[in-house]
């Protein structure tokens, strides 16, 4: 049955077995007392009313109320502890999943899709919880209530019980067929909904494009198709409901008719009491109800199994090299970086991303990396931060191999401004101090000033307390980049990596940022990745990359003198303007 999945996830729920036991124990009580109701009815009719023993009425009534109070308490305990069992397990599960997420290596995220991960973290966690809280005890309840009801039925009258039961196989068949048909239909609805969702999302995100090409009608038609499809998917499902549900009810009702026919006959014959017949009318539904639901319960079981498997896939992933038991102590680098014959290949890729890269960067030096998209610029910096381990070759910092430092030390020393400046839903202040949550306000402002972000921040209504993200303020690309730069400066890095960090900033601002950085980084090491020559021409060494290889290296001056070189070509393209701009009035600068 595939209980393996549940066994392997045991650590998350079994510590709370106490909740589970309580829930099941009280469930037995609940099911037991439920079956007592028809018996009370039978007793009242047969023993009190028909025999005229009215003096026992108060005892029966009070006894019944007492039983129901117990049942009430038991129902409460059962449901509460059942739910708690699931909720508590999910709490632990989420903690573990989140820890995994934080410490999974980079390669995991290279291949993972946010949507897929999110659905594991939400829908699958919920699916698993639902079974723990509800499905599990429903399975047990199914056995209990049917068992109890059958016992009572057989106790009252064996032939009548058999007659009543003869409809059950039909019911089971219908339930089975219904279940088989309805699940694909539900999947159809979900798929159609997801499609509708995508269509709308795309339309809204691209509304500027739609409007500027006045394609509203085209979009409305496209939407109509999806909307129509959703409707028809839904109606297909409702046809299945309309087909099977009344049939299930009819089968139940026909049992009642059979019961009435044979039961009434038995009563007339004197082989059954009137009260027993009345009790049967209740008991028959105690059996029918759970059978109708059985498909649903089995389905929660198989769904939670599938969910559990998907959760295990995440939980089974290996932690990043050190994982969570990293040392807290960090060492401060001087900033000497050495790459020796480094070759790297990303997981699942045939082509090497870097081939035989060697260079040395001394503290205070700036290394420029230039080259077309995909030439390996970013890979160099990713290896330096040890987001990946190189396939071969050595990377050393301050003369020691990278592996000798803890990840924490490496990353605390390296300030990275990534290509896509991701900011969190938080205040500007907290975004800048993301890497150094305990920074003083003065330092935050200082960093912002150096990144040329202070002025525009102060123009915002709430200044540094302005909330960004989700429902907050949207910033322009250049503004985001400047905040990212401030964030990197604030951790006071010994090595700074600027990965295309000023692409959306205008040249004038970029110039001021660079001037400020030069000051900060005077005795530290800087890596600049850029497409604009202006961004890296002052570097102490520029590496020109192509297909993972260094094809040229040297200072700006050296490189532009290589007449047919790649760097010179880029330079010519970018600087052809210069001459044209100034030739008109013969001015030089």
């Amino acid at each position, binding site marked *: 049955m595939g209980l393996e999945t549940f066994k392997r996830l045991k650590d998350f729920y079994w510590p709370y077995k106490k909740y589970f036991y309580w829930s099941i124990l009280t469930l037995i009580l609940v099911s037991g007392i439920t079956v007592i109701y028809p018996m009370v009815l039978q007793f009242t009719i047969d023993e009190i009313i028909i025999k005229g023993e009215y003096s026992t009425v108060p005892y*029966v009534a009070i006894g019944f109320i007492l039983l129901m109070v117990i049942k009430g308490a038991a129902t409460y305990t059962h449901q509460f502890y059942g739910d708690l069992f699931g909720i508590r397990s999910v*709490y632990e599960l989420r903690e573990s999943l989140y820890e995994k*997420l934080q410490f999974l290596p980079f390669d995991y995220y290279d291949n993972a899709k946010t949507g897929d991960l*999110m659905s594991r973290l939400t829908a699958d966690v919920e699916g698993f919880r639902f079974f723990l809280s509800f499905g599990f005890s429903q399975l047990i309840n199914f056995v209990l209530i049917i068992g109890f009801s059958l016992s009572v039925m057989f106790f009252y009258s064996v032939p009548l019980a058999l007659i009543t039961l003869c409809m059950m196989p039909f019911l089971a068949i219908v339930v089975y067929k219904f279940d088989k048909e309805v699940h694909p239909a539900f999947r159809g609805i979900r798929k159609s909904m997801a499609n509708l969702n995508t269509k*709308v999302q795309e339309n809204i995100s691209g509304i500027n494009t739609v409007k500027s*090409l006045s394609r509203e009608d085209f979009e409305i038609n496209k939407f109509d198709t999806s909307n129509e499809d959703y409707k028809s998917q839904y*109606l297909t499902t409702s046809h299945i409901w309309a087909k099977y549900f009344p049939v299930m009810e009819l089968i139940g009702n026909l049992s009642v008719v059979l019961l009435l026919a044979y039961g009434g*006959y038995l009563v007339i014959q004197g082989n059954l009491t009137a009260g027993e017949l009345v009790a049967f009318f209740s008991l028959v539904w105690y059996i029918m109800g759970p059978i109708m639901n059985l498909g649903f319960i089995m389905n929660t079981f198989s769904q939670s199994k599938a969910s559990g498997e998907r959760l295990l896939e995440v939980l089974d992933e290996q932690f990043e090299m050190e994982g969570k038991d990293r040392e807290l102590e960090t060492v401060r680098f001087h900033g000497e970086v050495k790459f020796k014959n480094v070759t790297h290949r990303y997981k699942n890729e045939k082509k090497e991303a870097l081939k035989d890269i060697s260079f040395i960067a001394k503290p205070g030096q700036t290394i420029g990396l230039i080259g077309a998209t995909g030439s390996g610029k970013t890979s160099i910096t990713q290896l330096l931060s040890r987001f990946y381990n190189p396939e071969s070759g050595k990377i050393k910092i301050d003369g020691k191999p990278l592996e000798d430092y803890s990840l924490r030390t490496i990353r605390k020393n390296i300030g990275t401004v990534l290509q896509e400046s991701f900011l969190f839903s938080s205040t500007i202040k907290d975004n800048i101090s993301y890497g150094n949550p305990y920074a003083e306000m003065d330092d935050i402002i200082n960093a912002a000033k150096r990144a040329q972000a202070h002025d525009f921040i102060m123009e915002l209504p709430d200044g540094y307390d302005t909330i960004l993200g989700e429902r907050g303020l949207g910033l322009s690309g250049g503004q985001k980049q400047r905040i990212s730069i401030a964030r990197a400066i604030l951790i006071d890095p010994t090595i700074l990596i600027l990965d295309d960090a000023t692409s959306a900033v205008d040249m004038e601002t970029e110039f001021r940022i660079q001037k400020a950085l030069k000051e900060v980084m005077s005795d530290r090491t800087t890596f600049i990745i850029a497409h604009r020559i202006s961004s890296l021409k002052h570097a102490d060494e520029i590496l020109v990359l192509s297909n993972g290889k260094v094809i040229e290296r040297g200072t700006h001056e050296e490189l532009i003198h290589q007449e047919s070189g790649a760097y010179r070509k880029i330079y010519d393209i970018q600087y052809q303007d210069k001459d044209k701009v100034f030739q008109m009035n013969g001015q030089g600068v």
Partner: protein
Amino acid sequence: MQNDQQTKKTPRFKYSSEQVIDKPFNWGQIIRLFQYMKPYSKNLLPKAIIAMMVSTAVRLVVPIFIGVLTFDHAIKNKDTNLLVTLIVAIAGLYLLSWGANTLRIKWMNYLGQYVIYDIRQHLFKHIQRLSHRFFDQRSAGSILVRIINDVNSLQDLFTNGVINVLMDVILLFGIIVIMFIYSPELTLAIMVILPLMFFISTSLRKKIRRSWQVVRIKQAKLNSHLNESIQGIRVTKSYTQEEENMDFFNGVNNETYDSWKTATQQNALFRPFVEMSNAIGTVILLWFGSYLIQGGALDIGVFVTFAFYLGMFWEPISRLGQVYNQLLVGMASSERIFEFLDEKPNVHEKDNAYSFSTIKGEIEFKNVEFSYNADRKALKGIDLTIQGGQTVALVGHTGSGKTTIANLVSRFYDPTSGAVEIDGKDLKDVNLASLREKVSVVLQDTFIFSGTIKENIRFGRPSASDEEVQNAAKAVGAHAFIERLSNGYETEVEERGNVLSVGERQLLSFARALLADPDILILDEATASIDTESEQKIQRALKTLLNGRTAIIIAHRLSTIREADNIVVLDHGEIMEQGSHAELMEAEGIYYHLVVSQFKMLDAI
């Protein structure tokens, strides 16, 4: 479960959190919502109601057959013939009910889905017509939620809610009336539990609903954070903030757990209360019923019938409580839906609007002022003439008004004062569709719709043939890279997919614009970093694209600016200077300093 570490400051992430509030019942809104059922009031609605009434009638009648007729007549008199008749009758009734239920479920779902379809279609259509201002103020996500989730949450109300209310009311009244006919005193005695049941169904439910709302809010926060932490994982790792984030998550996880526990505690009260009230009813029936039988005022059959009815009591009451919940949910959703439907496009089209046929492409700004919001003017008294076929470059810092000028030409907004004219026609008098057919905008961040490359280019003109699509791609130099893709023009791409580079996306949008073949082109030059090789391709494509059109370029690249016929330098919503590159360099004004300082910078560091 307490967060042992005392939080030193405010939480490091901030997510919007709604408040748990109950809106007062708004009948006007309910009536407006139910207007959507009107188209079906002559057909589906009555059909569904009739089917519902048939099955309800069967449910009401059967307990009499089984209780009163079987026990008090057939069994009591040992009348086998009557028993057979009764059984045949009941079987017939059940078959009738089976047919009626089949139709009821079918028709109810039709009704619900048609209404939902209509609402969604209406909402989407309306939103398509709204102006830029509307979209400026809202995130794509918040609009999406209304079209998808808010409309979905009305589904239950229209599918089950409306018909079920009727059914439950009929059932409840039917039971009470029938019971009353058979035994007024016993009925009155049992009625005691009704208020109790209604109390549970409304008041306790309300409390439970609120506590679930808290859970949902907490979970939304948890999910927002999960989503963000996945997207921002590279930043987190670069800054070794894993532990700090775990602290934050632990806090959110605890909050969720606590709220869930509270909700469960309250939720678990529900069933015991219901069962207790049922038990009280049963005891009244047992005690008072047998007392009445003892006095000869009641027969066993009636007693049995009453027992059946008592078991049927809870269902309609419970469902009515549910419908009330559905109505509350529906009201919150419909309020949000109506808020959008009540938005009027800020840009109005006149009834007798002028339609452009062919235009020369002369653009004139006459003393144009514009502000996005009350406190800041984006444009201050702009006077600008653009000749047909000219290329104009707009230069200036972020916020200087470049984009605003471009937006006014497409009439995404109307000027606060002054007029924008094309070929001497005030845009306020022009038919929007005919205007936008003439004016195309190429945006900085090219939007890629999911679909094939071909479909994406064709978005510029859906009627274009495959050949025309290819020609457009060839003209802007996109053909080569498209051919290199796995399926050429049929390659599937999507918004965030990384099949295409930034430069390639830009070329696609050029092809798209070329296909649309506008007389006036507005181009927001990409600032994103593109490698030099692609950059050159784009520059070449741009020349093809601009050929023979009036163009307004929000320019960032000196090469583009230099080649413009007219350069307009903007600052804080005002034109500081304009002229050709040569003229402006000669004048040694702002533009000159801008250019000179840029090159100085290159050499300075």
